[in-house]
């Protein structure tokens, strides 16, 4: 039970942490500053000057000009399931834009300033706050999760130590006979270590099953909100990797717990 709870919390925080990390990477890869031009801008040549200015200030940035036609293509791709929306929009409706990606969030304010003061720019979209908030949330998730996992792993270790310790006491006579008839240390200790491993193993499998079940159930409801963020739907291969890692981690915790019990109660 305690192993299941520990693994449940462990896997949950692992997934939350990985999900947030992925979301952050996604946002960092995405254009972090987007300048939308008015209708007078139709080709990349018209904004050459500002692009050069940005690159001079921040050599590490990448820029991409999206013309009205390209914007329409992107729009059509995103809304291909909704013919009504497709009918309403033409290339003229959409503005041309310049997407600027910086390697560091710290470079964003300068780029923002340059674009904002550029002629023919109607609006500048700026993701600094989103990224900063996400970094802060991710940090809290990691720290809180780590503290909770350390607490639960310690509890699980002591629980396993106690359970295996009790079993060793109950099988004292049998262990004594085994030793006297020539049982090796591995023969006597092996079953207890294996038992500890199985506690961890089953804790991990049960928790993983519950969590994956929850993810599968909620995914259809969350897709409309998070679909574009490359988190959902969760890949089955990724979940299998999580299962493998959880089983390994649970097994190690179980074996360490029972090893401590064996070490404590079967010294001689």
């Amino acid at each position, binding site marked *: 039970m305690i192993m299941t709870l520990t693994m449940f919390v462990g896997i949950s925080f692992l997934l939350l942490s990985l999900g947030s990390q992925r979301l952050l990477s996604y946002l960092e890869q995405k254009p972090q500053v987007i300048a939308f031009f008015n209708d007078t801008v139709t080709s990349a040549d018209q904004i050459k000057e500002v692009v050069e200015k940005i690159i001079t200030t921040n050599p590490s940035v990448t820029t991409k000009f999206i013309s009205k036609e390209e914007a329409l293509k992107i729009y059509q791709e995103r809304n291909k399931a909704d013919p009504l929306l497709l009918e309403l929009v033409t290339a003229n409706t959409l503005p041309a834009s310049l997407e600027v990606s910086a390697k560091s969030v710290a470079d964003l304010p300068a780029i923002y300033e340059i674009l904002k003061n550029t002629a023919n720019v109607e609006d500048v979209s700026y993701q600094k706050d989103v990224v900063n908030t996400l970094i802060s949330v991710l940090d809290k998730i990691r720290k809180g999760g780590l503290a909770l996992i350390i607490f639960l792993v310690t509890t699980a270790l002591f629980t396993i130590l106690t359970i295996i310790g009790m079993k060793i006491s109950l099988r004292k*006579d*049998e262990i*004594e*006979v*085994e*030793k*006297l*008839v*020539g*049982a*090796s*240390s591995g*023969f006597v200790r092996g079953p207890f270590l294996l038992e500890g491993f199985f506690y961890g193993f089953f804790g991990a499998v049960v928790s993983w099953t519950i969590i994956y079940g929850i993810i599968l159930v909620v995914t259809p409801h969350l897709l409309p909100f998070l679909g574009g963020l490359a988190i959902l739907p969760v890949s089955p291969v990724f979940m299998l990797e999580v299962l493998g890692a959880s089983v390994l981690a649970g097994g190690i915790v179980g074996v360490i717990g029972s090893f401590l019990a064996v070490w404590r109660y079967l010294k001689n």
Partner: protein
Amino acid sequence: MIKFENVSKKFPDGTVALEDLTLEINDGEFVFLVGPSGAGKTTILKLILREILPNSGTILVDEHDLKKISGGKVVQLRRKIGCVFQDLKLLPDRSILENVALSLWVLGKNAREVEAESKEKLELVGLAGKGDFFPAQLSGGELQRAAIARALAGNPKYLLADEPTGNVDDENGWKIVKILEKINEDGTTVVMATHNPEFVDKLHKRVVRLKDGKIISDRRGKYRE
């Protein structure tokens, strides 16, 4: 070969169990350790099995110096020795067959070998049909024989028997002694602690008489001569 050289054993409560004892038992011998309670018979057997260590002196069992070995060497030593304990140490929640099998599982034998050899040993001690019985379902004599069967599993080089006829009637006691004699004839060294003169006298084997942790006589023959 089992060799005790000037061995002394004193327990923490101050009891002197053995005092400067020197004894040599050759391979293939049948040796009775006789003497009153507290003479040191059980202590000798426990020392051979390395359940306890001497305070001084040297004990050799084949190449093993029992004071110097540990870990895997102790395992090797114990696999050479079968022991019928005074309190039998049969596990009450296991069948007789499972009790015998335990000695074979520890040797790493497979299930088929374990079952075949366990049955063979039970047959040897006359318990062929009682493998599925639990210790609580057997008589005193049968329990002793079951303990002998377990001690013999794995064909040990040495068999130690601590009062194997202690709690049984003469008829059953005699059966047990005959089994031990047969095992000895097949090549196993047998060391039997007893205070029953009748069986000792009939077998006419080497008799080591102990009193207060010392050997007072060591000769072939009868319990008292």
